[in-house]
């Protein structure tokens, strides 16, 4: 007899258990309880976020498939679709960083190729604790190694990403991975169990006991000693996934597949339930037929296993022989394990007995939805200004460039194969967004991912707007226009009203920014309970945008001596230090006030820079964000052998001018002859500020009044910034 204690040990609350008893009119058996526990987990049911997620704009002229499928899809012209999504693998990666990150990559790739799209590019967004924390080095190397291991073996280039270090992630790192694939717009596959009587096939690796209750674990907070949960982390096999990719695409081409879904979180359970749910049908599954790699596995274990590299398919019975032909060729396991029914139930047989018989809608639409209470986060008063200019500003600039959140990420991205497929037109570090060549007739694509989480923490609504603005600004800087985006909402414990408030505010801010910046969200992921020993992470609504390239693309780096250096967008306000890197590095404070972003101004800025690029007026463009003008400028100069002379600046406080983080600014370089035309366009057509800072100089020095920094010194500090970690 199942008791409330059993339910609680499965992560279900007392009221949820009562609810189950009422829906069924009986007590569930242990297997059924397991199925409920994963389907009603936060990870699968989105029970806390669902009512708020509906506020996000999900439609647009290019959107083919919005949220609800395995991944979203946008039209990129030429009859082709880009299929993409971002997902988190935070909890497993903290427990076992290499396998946790690796299987995160594996999972997101399956989400994409299950739609019929061959993966062509990946990104990642990582958050670690502070550099000095005792676990950080181990976690960074494990996560980076795991992503490299899986992505490189799959032959999918990892073309970009972002990494930040902050104490709020000391006990709960974030590993968010994004994959984009491409297919024909009329050959997108969906996860539907259509056609009563159609056979259900299982393909891929055998099922083991790994990852049982992974989805439930991802719905709990961490406590000291949780590394002991290691057995719930799955082990990835990228080689097998590469075979699975090729086999699935080959089988798709035969027309045999009616519906297909990967077995990700909650494994066979969620894939069967979701496929049946989308088609309004039932499924009957025979546990004995499921390929296994361990002996004496129970139905409970098989249903809840999160073994990797597996797919569930509904097959056209007339073409069923194709399954064996293709999967034998690729030496993968396959088996017919069930049938589509009209019962509306998930029926599971084990040794001829019915061991699970649950209505599909009880597991999906009847899953709880919570409107959890929220209340504004009460921030203490903090230091919000920096008392004095650093005594040696030149030395400070060098050290600042070498600080963990600003230094080069080359030690990380050089471990990723970012060139395989020979379509990476802008490699990591070359521009504000990665650029991927697609095919003749279709748009080349720009990809960027962003989340200034310190800003979101200080002001979730404004911070989420900053997130969307920064990410789409990165696209604009390479002359791309957003087609769509995916989000990955990483938050703390939502049962705390302040965390719930962060989540709601951030979603609403993100929704507003997406609307104004014309970037619909076509899919995403929510990861809650990112907390450890009662410390919640900074709210981190990761955002990855996909843009269609205009005709001309430019670099972020300055191109030649003599070019003018201009800051366009909003006029610099030296008081904009809230949540800035400078305030953090100098005062270990995040301040009290986040600069408000004006989204219509941001939109004008992005349109403006695209026009400047198209009109061939500018040579380079780089988003001015973390670290302010100084950092953007150094980044524009590194690797070029050139320097700059900033002669037009007459500020009383050079430090705050150089480091403040006024939003909506882009640093451009233009030929001297283009100065007048550019100024007119920026100021008159777009109504934006035009700050002429100085010019590119042939000698590799950063010169500003009495301050002179050898670029090589700053570049060395920047290049070696992560050397102690990786």
């Amino acid at each position, binding site marked *: 007899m199942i008791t409330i204690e059993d339910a609680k040990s499965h992560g279900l609350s007392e009221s949820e258990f009562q609810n189950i008893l009422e829906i069924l009119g009986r007590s569930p058996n242990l297997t059924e309880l397991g199925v409920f526990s994963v389907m009603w987990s936060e990870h699968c049911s989105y029970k806390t976020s669902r009512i708020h997620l509906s506020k996000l704009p999900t439609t647009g002229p290019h959107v083919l498939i919005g949220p609800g499928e395995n991944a979203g899809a946008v039209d990129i012209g030429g009859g082709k679709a880009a299929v993409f999504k971002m997902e988190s693998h935070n909890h497993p990666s903290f427990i076992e960083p290499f396998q946790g990150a690796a299987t995160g990559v594996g999972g997101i790739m399956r989400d994409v190729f299950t739609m019929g799209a061959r993966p062509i590019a990946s990104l990642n967004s990582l958050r670690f604790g502070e550099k000095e924390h005792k676990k950080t080095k181990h976690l960074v190397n494990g996560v980076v190694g795991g992503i490299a291991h899986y992505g*490189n073996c799959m032959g999918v280039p990892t073309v970009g990403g972002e990494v930040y270090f902050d104490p709020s992630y000391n006990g709960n790192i974030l590993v968010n991975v994004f994959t984009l694939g491409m297919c024909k717009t009329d050959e997108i596959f969906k996860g539907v169990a259509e056609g009563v009587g159609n056979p259900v096939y299982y393909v891929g690796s055998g099922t083991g006991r790994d990852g049982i209750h992974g989805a439930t674990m991802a719905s709990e907070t961490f406590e000291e000693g949780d590394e002991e949960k290691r057995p719930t982390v799955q082990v990835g096999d990228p*080689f097998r996934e590469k075979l699975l990719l090729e086999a699935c695409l080959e089988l798709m081409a035969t027309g045999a597949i009616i519906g297909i879904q990967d077995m990700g979180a909650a494994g066979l359970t969620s894939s069967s339930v979701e496929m049946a749910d989308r088609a309004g049908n039932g499924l009957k599954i025979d546990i004995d037929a499921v390929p296994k790699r361990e002996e004496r596995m129970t139905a409970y274990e098989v249903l809840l296993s999160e073994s990797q590299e597996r797919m569930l398919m509904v097959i056209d019975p007339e073409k069923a022989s194709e399954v064996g032909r293709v999967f034998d060729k690729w030496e993968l396991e396959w088996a017919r394990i069930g049938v589509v029914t009209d019962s509306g139930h998930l029926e599971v047989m084990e040794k001829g007995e019915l061991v699970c018989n649950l209505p599909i809608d009880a597991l999906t639409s009847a899953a709880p939805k919570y409107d959890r209470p929220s209340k504004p986060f009460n921030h203490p008063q903090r230091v919000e200004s920096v008392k004095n200019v650093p005594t040696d500003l030149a030395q400070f600039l060098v050290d600042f460039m070498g600080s963990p959140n600003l230094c080069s990420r080359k030690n990380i991205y050089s471990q*990723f194969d970012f060139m*395989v497929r020979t379509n990476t037109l802008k490699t990591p570090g070359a521009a504000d967004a990665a650029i991927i*060549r697609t095919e003749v007739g279709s748009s080349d694509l720009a990809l960027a991912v962003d989340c200034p989480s310190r800003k979101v923490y200080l002001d979730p609504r404004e911070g989420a707007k900053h997130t969307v603005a920064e990410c789409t600004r990165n696209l604009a800087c390479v002359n791309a226009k957003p087609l769509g985006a995916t989000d990955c909402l990483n938050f703390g414990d939502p049962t705390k009203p302040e965390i719930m408030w962060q989540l709601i505010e951030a979603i609403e801010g993100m929704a507003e920014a997406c609307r104004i910046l014309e970037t619909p969200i076509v899919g995403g992921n929510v990861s809650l309970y990112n907390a450890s020993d009662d410390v919640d992470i900074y709210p981190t609504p990761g955002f990855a945008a996909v843009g269609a390239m205009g005709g001309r693309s430019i670099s972020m780096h300055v191109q030649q001596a003599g070019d003018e250096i201009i800051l366009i967008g909003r006029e610099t306000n030296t008081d904009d230090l809230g949540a800035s890197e400078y305030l953090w590095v100098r005062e270990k404070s995040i301040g009290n006030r986040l600069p408000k972003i004006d989204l219509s101004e941001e939109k004008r800025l992005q349109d403006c820079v695209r026009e400047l690029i198209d009109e061939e007026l500018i040579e380079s463009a780089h988003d001015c964000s973390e670290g302010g003008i100084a950092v953007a400028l150094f980044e524009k100069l590194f690797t070029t052998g050139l320097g700059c002379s900033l002669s037009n600046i007459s500020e009383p406080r050079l430090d705050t001018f150089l480091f403040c983080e006024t939003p909506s600014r882009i640093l451009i370089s233009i030929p001297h002859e283009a100065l007048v035309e550019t100024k007119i366009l920026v100021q008159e057509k777009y109504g934006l500020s035009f700050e002429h800072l100085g010019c590119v100089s042939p000698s590799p020095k950063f010169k500003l009044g009495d301050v002179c920094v050898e670029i090589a010194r700053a570049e060395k500090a920047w290049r070696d910034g992560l050397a102690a970690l990786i």
Partner: protein
Amino acid sequence: MKNAKIVVFPGSNCDTDCERALLQVGFKTERVWHRDSTIEKCDLIVIPGGFSFGDYLRAGAIAKASPIMSEVARHAERGTSVLGICNGFQILLEVGLLPGAMTRNASLQFICGEQWIRHDSNSSLALKKKVLKVPIAHGEGNFRIDDDGLRRLQDHDQIVFRYCNQEGVVSSATNPNGSVDNIAGVCSKNRRVLGMMPHPERACDPKLGSNDGADILRSFLNNRV
């Protein structure tokens, strides 16, 4: 038209890139599957990069047992040109068509990035002593060979490419992975089999940063290394 065959193993992932590059420089291409036991007459056999059999056991170690490899060896003996790139190079070492062995990069990390290599062999007119920009992407590219073996490679002019800097200087500072003598590529004594860690197929388009790889592939149109 010269005819190239591309050998595909489970886990190969540069097969499409090689096909594109070979077509671009003027080859006709066809893929052959690792379980095939014959390769029809052709001018060049390419073993592309990737992770054949997941690099399990050791890079290239399992691919060695595939039926196609004895056919590749037979072709090499008869004088067909064979080019192994990255994992393909590792496979050629495993089957003994080239001397030496690979171990993990000295950094113990996978490394991907731009790389300069110098053509160091006297045999090819087209490439002689040229400094080429050809990217690398590997975790096990640390070429090892004993002193006698190295001397034999040197004596027979079998060291085709060495890692260098943009100026063509070969030194420990320009060695990305710890390879003996900065070796990036070697050929067989009869000069029909070439293995190299850098990826020429990724350097066949100025838009991707280099067109130097096309020169290497093109030299096979003239049967020269």
